[in-house]
């Protein structure tokens, strides 16, 4: 459990299954993330629109810089189930990537079904990773490098990003920064590339994916796809 002094990444989890919501919530909390769990894509968008990400409409050309315009908690990553009634995880992903205020939030897709075309479609649309259910702690451990860094959590290793709308991170903790520095250097030198608006799943993600794949233990029957769907 994270101490109150540490800034915690906030993850928005989306899943229509009550059992899976409970599970993902616990997995995330045990990994020291702050969690909001909702049961549909539309509720997710509602939440994103009403909190710190300042639900601007997707027609806004450039987010304005305004230090005090954030009200609630920010979201550093969205993890969503694929198969949901109404708005699927893919639909949600698309909406997020089409929104100027939301598109920089990393999205991870979960699914119980290993469908290569589905996986590549999601990755092409900008998902960071595709996780096969049932989700385990080892899967959640791999989320950390994908977390969206906000201004206060940023380290000087990272190139300055267009974080104009994402300040207002209330807590700044040097200790936390240090941890992030370590993580950054260990995992993702590729994440230094400035991520402007049109960044979809690119070579960076693919390279990350291959690194991630190497960590898989051979006795696990299931595979996980991130960046490169291999089949």
């Amino acid at each position, binding site marked *: *459990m994270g101490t109150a002094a540490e800034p915690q990444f906030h993850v928005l989890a989306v899943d229509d299954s*009550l*059992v899976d919501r*409970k599970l993902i919530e*616990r997995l995330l909390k*045990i990994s020291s993330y702050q969690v909001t769990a909702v049961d549909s894509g539309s509720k997710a968008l509602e939440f994103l629109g009403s909190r710190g990400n300042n639900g601007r409409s997707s027609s806004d050309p450039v987010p304005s810089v305004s230090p005090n315009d954030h009200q609630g908690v920010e979201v550093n990553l969205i993890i969503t189930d694929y198969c949901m009634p109404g708005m699927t995880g893919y639909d949600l992903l698309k909406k997020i990537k089409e929104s100027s205020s939301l598109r920089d939030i990393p999205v991870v897709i979960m699914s*119980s079904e290993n469908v290569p075309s589905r996986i590549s479609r999601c990755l092409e649309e900008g998902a960071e990773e595709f996780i096969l259910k049932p*989700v385990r702690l080892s899967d959640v451990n791999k989320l950390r490098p994908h977390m969206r860094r906000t201004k206060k959590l940023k380290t000087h290793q990272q190139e300055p990003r267009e974080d104009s709308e994402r300040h207002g991170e209330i807590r700044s903790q040097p200790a936390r920064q240090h941890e992030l520095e370590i993580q950054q250097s260990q995992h993702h030198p590729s994440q230094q590339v400035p991520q402007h608006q049109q960044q979809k799943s690119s070579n960076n993600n693919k390279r990350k994916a291959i690194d991630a794949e190497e960590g898989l233990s051979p006795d696990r029957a299931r595979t996980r796809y991130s960046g490169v769907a291999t089949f």
Partner: protein
Amino acid sequence: MDVAQLKRQLFEYTTLLFHEGFLDEQFTQLQQLQDENNPDFVVEVVSLFFDDSERLLNELATALDQQNIDFNKVDAHVHQLKGSSSSIGAQRVQRVCIAFRNSCQDKNVEGCLKCLQEVKHEYSLIKNKLEILFNLEKQILAAGGSPPV
């Protein structure tokens, strides 16, 4: 029965459930997510699974009772049941769901009805066995033992 005996019983019972394929590794994952601050996590998730499954089994019975069966609807329910059983490690339930989905895809009424019976049967088995397991854990705690796992 003293705590040591109860613990042994619990251990043997749990091992048996794994051996017979009632539970798989995912159940172990759940147990690992439990700690002093969340001592009832497994029971809570499993209870949600029980509630959810019972609802789905009812829906399935209704859906298969129709004159014109909507196989997409049936499949959707089975998909949900498959997902939640997989998430808690109820392996045998999950396996029947896979067969069930095949029958749905083939629009095979008889196959579906058979699968429904099977899944109801497997569900009641795992429910019963998990209740025994949780009961043993409770007894251990009541006898002053530390929480298992």
